[in-house]
């Protein structure tokens, strides 16, 4: 299914002779893989610059993960707290990321988020207002000031709908329900991608002078997650396979509050907006226990701290009947809740028979976000592979060891735009020869078809995925030890060997089993990388909680773990010193210390 730009595609349909499998060929200046906030922002940038743009997405347009974001978008516009500035936003981001963030990305992000918010408004997005008629801002965990521009608890919907409508108003061609399976290179540069459409199971080879990777995160490696089926981390593995460096892969965010009951919704997000609006955490003894973990910031401490607190309360026997803790927002009253948190009200009423204006919610940490990802240049989001750019959750660096709530939506637009600009410059800079060997493409098609067209029976991709999710829950969860991680790695490597045997039934027509067979490859590869990097970081820092190394290690505070595929095709890990912060940034922290 695609929605055609008015004259966006200059691609021609083609069939290859001499091959049993036919595929269509398309060509664009820029191919954007992913139609979340980041991908769409990049696409708009490149399309408005007059380039031919193709956008590929596994789902229908407007359904990407970004649609689920609830709480808001962080930007120091200072509408309700005029003291706020990019400097404070920058410092909050660095502190929360425990200083392994890429400081230049954090600086650009803090400085440019306000412009991206206003740009959204210019394009028709509607945020809630202050009495002065400005965009209203709500408090969120570990943000010094009230900073999250929001509209109720459906900010992501507002963002993606605005970007989607903006994209449809350009000439970009959108390939909906189309999945990329591999990037292709020529002379060391990325020059195209192979994809198949879900509807027909047919292949498309898309030539592109530049590729922007914007495929989002990989929460689906865990059983209990707030992420949708799409969160399988395709882009990080596609980039890794193409030779790109990855950074901070050990850093997975556990959101402190996911639903625990009923079983079908376990892991579903309870937005931080609830705590932002004054929600209180209590254990089964009725204690407001956050006082013991972060007396100052209480429920609005950073996510890593609150997640550990919730986890600890349950571990130590003070949990609720379904193994969670209580989150209470009843004091806001029905009217207040319907204005500020209507989606949450509906979610609990419909799915759990709980009226949150009368009763507390039961919550427990859920896997939520991936701080790590493709390593990029802050200015233009270029990866280490020429022609390949990355933005949004699939890219790493901005958030360091822990992401602040609301910093993702702004990240998407700040760096989505920069990736678009990076791609435009790259396209305009040089000549691009895009031809690759047809046999290379055919080999990839064969690989993708293997699970379905052999007529044999074999392992179910769903069962492998379930085993993997369980292994990650058991061994790479919020609390980690060397022993556990090693055991987990053993299990994942065993699963890796079984990938070859996956077989699925049915035809190529919209076949979810076949799609799952593609996804598990990514899940297994990412899990292996996470386990290996988590073993390397022998300390507690942000989201990485190592019981066997219970302290923060000063030395490791200057280090990122960089992953790349080594000569043997194995996971190579290198620890790399972080360049020191320049004076104009480090000075901010010194000044603060003086006060």
């Amino acid at each position: 299914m695609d929605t055609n730009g008015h004259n966006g595609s200059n691609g021609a349909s083609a069939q290859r002779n001499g091959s049993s499998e036919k595929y269509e060929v398309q060509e664009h200046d820029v191919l954007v893989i992913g139609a979340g906030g980041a991908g769409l922002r990049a696409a708009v940038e490149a399309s408005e610059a007059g380039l031919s743009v193709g956008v590929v997405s596994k789902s229908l347009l407007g359904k990407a993960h970004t649609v689920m974001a609830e709480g808001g978008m962080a930007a120091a516009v200072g509408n309700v707290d005029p003291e706020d500035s990019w400097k404070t936003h920058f410092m909050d981001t660095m502190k929360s990321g425990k200083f392994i963030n890429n400081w230049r990305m954090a600086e650009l992000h803090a400085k440019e988020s306000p412009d991206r918010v206003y740009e959204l408004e210019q394009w028709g997005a509607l945020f809630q207002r202050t009495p002065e008629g400005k965009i209203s801002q709500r408090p969120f965990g570990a943000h010094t000031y009230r900073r999250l521009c929001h509209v109720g608890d459906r900010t992501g919907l507002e963002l993606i709908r605005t970007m989607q409508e903006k994209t449809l108003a350009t000439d970009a061609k959108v390939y909906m329900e189309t999945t990329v399976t591999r990037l292709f290179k020529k002379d060391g540069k990325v020059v195209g991608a192979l994809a198949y459409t879900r509807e027909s199971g047919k292949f498309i080879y898309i030539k592109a002078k530049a590729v922007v990777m914007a495929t989002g995160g990989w929460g689906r490696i865990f059983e209990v997650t707030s992420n949708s089926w799409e969160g399988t981390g395709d882009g990080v593995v596609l980039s890794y396979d193409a030779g790109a460096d990855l950074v901070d892969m050990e850093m997975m965010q556990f959101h402190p509050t996911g639903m625990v009951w009923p079983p079908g919704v376990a892991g579903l997000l309870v937005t931080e907006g609830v705590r932002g609006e004054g929600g209180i955490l209590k254990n089964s003894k009725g204690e407001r226990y956050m006082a013991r973990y972060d007396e100052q910031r209480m429920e609005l401490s950073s996510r890593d701290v609150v997640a550990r607190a919730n986890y600890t309360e349950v571990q130590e026997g003070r949990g609720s009947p379904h193994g969670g803790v209580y989150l209470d927002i009843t004091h806001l009253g029905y009217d207040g809740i319907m204005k500020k948190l209507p989606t949450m009200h509906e979610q609990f009423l419909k799915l759990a028979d709980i009226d949150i204006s009368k009763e507390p919610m039961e919550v427990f940490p859920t896997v939520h976000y991936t701080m790590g990802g493709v390593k990029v240049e802050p200015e233009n989001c270029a990866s280490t592979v020429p022609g390949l750019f990355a933005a949004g959750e699939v890219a790493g660096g901005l958030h360091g060891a822990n992401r602040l709530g609301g910093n993702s939506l702004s990240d998407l637009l700040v760096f989505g735009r920069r990736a678009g600009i990076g791609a435009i410059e790259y396209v305009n800079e040089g000549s691009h020869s895009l031809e690759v060997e047809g046999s290379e493409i055919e080999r990839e098609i064969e690989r993708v078809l293997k699970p379905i067209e052999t007529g044999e029976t074999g392992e179910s991709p769903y069962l492998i995925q379930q085993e993997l999710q369980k292994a990650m829950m058991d061994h790479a969860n919020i609390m980690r030890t060397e022993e556990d991680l090693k055991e987990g790695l053993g299990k994942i490597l065993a699963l890796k060997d079984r990938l070859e045997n996956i077989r699925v039934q049915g035809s190529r027509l919209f076949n979810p089993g076949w799609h799952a067979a593609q996804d598990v490859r990514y899940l297994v590869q990412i899990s292996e990388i996470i386990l290996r990097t988590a073993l390397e970081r022998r300390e507690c820092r942000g989201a990485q909680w190592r019981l066997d190394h219970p302290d923060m290690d000063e030395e490791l505070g200057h280090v990122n773990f960089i992953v790349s595929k080594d000569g043997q095709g194995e996971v190579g890990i290198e620890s790399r010193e972080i360049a020191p912060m320049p004076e104009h940034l480090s000075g901010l922290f010194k000044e603060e210390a003086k006060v």
Partner: protein
Amino acid sequence: MTADGSAARLKVYRGDGENGEFVEYETPMVTGMVVLDAILNIQAEQESDLAVRWNCKAAHCGSCSAEINGVPKLLCKTRIEEYEGREINVQPLKAWPIIKDLVSDVSWNYEVSRSTIPFHSEQQAPFTMYEEDVERLYEPKKCIECFMCQDVCHVLRTHEKHDVFAGPRFFVRNQWLQMHPMDDRDRLRYLKEDRGGIQYCNITKCCTEVCPVGIKITDNSIIPLKERVADEYYDPAKWLMRKIRGRKNGASNGSVNGS
């Protein structure tokens, strides 16, 4: 998990646009289970190629719309228990060609979306807008594009006016665009003479009844737009003004809010 030993039983449409039939499945019942859970269990354990769309599993994305016993529903928001003692027949949305099983081809909606006149403002953000100016835009903005209203609207479903009628989802969108205090484009011609076709709507309210996010599509979107179209097209003074100035409502931004 809390399977209490009982089973969820449902019939699911299996097939494509040409051939298909309802097939009965059984899967263990779990407390609080929604129809999507049952479908995904069947997919994981019995029929790996059973096609269904879903993303958020939280009623936020509008992907999982299908018809249960002929009524459009979000599969992720519909509990099995609601059908105590009744059959559960699940089939794809009917107003579009079926691709496979529970998935139909909704791409037509995206074409209509492309044809909609987008938001535009000569003024530069940040805008000054007060809560009371925009409050009523929150409702149409809640749309999750499940296209269930499109599915039940007889103008599409029965009369197949896909070429000349945009459908309730897009009236909802045109409404907020048209009433946004900062927008300066005119969409009344689009609604009346172009793709919109709002005159085909005879206010049956079927769309409002199925909207999962509670948008009062007929009362709050369609009727106000119809009134404006009528004002604009059948009021000679306005007609003249439109000819001369070609502006939204033939007036300045200030009056956009009043209808």
